[in-house]
């Protein structure tokens, strides 16, 4: 599942996408996020599954443009901590 969290506003699109098919439920992204906007929960979008997946906390979904601002790389070499922490490369940011 491609889970998109975020929004579009006048200045652009701000989405964090988590590909749960790639996710191995290790939880490293949750630890890596300095703003603590990720949590591991039992998959809320598939009630029949028992797998734990990371989600963006509901209250944070409307302000990631700002919350994630400090992690945005100043050059192309550096990656956001959540993206870097994910070995299966399941996390992407749209901006």
């Amino acid at each position, binding site marked *: 599942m491609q889970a998109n969290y975020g929004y579009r506003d006048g200045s652009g699109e701000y989405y964090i996408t988590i590909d749960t098919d790639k996710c191995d439920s290790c939880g490293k992204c949750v630890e890596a996020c300095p703003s603590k906007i990720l949590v591991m929960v039992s998959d809320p979008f598939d009630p029949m599954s028992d797998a734990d997946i990371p989600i963006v906390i509901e209250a944070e979904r409307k302000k990631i443009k*700002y919350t994630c*601002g400090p992690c945005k790389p100043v050059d192309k070499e550096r990656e956001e901590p959540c993206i870097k922490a994910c070995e299966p490369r399941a996390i992407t940011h749209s901006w």
Partner: protein
Amino acid sequence: MYVAGIDMGAKFVKVVILDDGEIKGKGMAPTGFDLDEAANSAFNSALENAGIQKDDLKHITSTGAGKKEVDFRNTEVTEVGAAAKGAISLFPGSRTIIEVGAEEGRALRSDENGRVLDFVINEKCAAGAGAFTEAMARALEIPVTEMGALSLKSAKETPMNAQCAVFAESEVVSLVHSKTSKEDIARAIHDAIASRISSMVRRLSIEKDVTLIGGLAKNIGFVESLKRDLNMDINVPDDPDFVGALGAALVARKKAKEG
């Protein structure tokens, strides 16, 4: 030498007339839906206020969302450029300038000459502009001009969750129903918009002094909330809504000198 700056804002048109760098006249008119009429009306009242004729003006520079609609302009300047020039002339120490108008919020960093180094803009969303407090005042059924003083009476933080002005209206109504005082709600409203504005400002590296301009700067409740959120003191000029027009007039003066 007389020059003029005209700021075509979303809600009001503001005009400043300078005589060798000194303010000689000011004029203001609601923008309404006929931009030509609004521009002429604000302009004529500024001319009257300065006691001069249109022909006495050497140069007219326009700024603001409707800057291209001013037929009688000689040049135009961006809103960010006008804000920087205007703010630096009033507070030369300003390095970070925040402007919150009726429909836009913006923040910029400027050098000592009013040259813009970096800026961010929030547009197309009422939640980060003066329109937010207006809509909330309507929901609270009090005049928007009383919101500031009212919120200063509150010592309590009340969280508002909605990030959208339309949803926030419903939230205000339910706060009223849950017997939250109008003082506390007014403060919650100012805290909410201040937090959005300061998030925007933080995308720049904030350098002191910080100067706040634009129509919302007249709201003392918002100013207090913003100071609290940024945790620093902020300069606020006497006529914060005229700073854009002043900046445009300063640009006009430079252009006129250059000939």
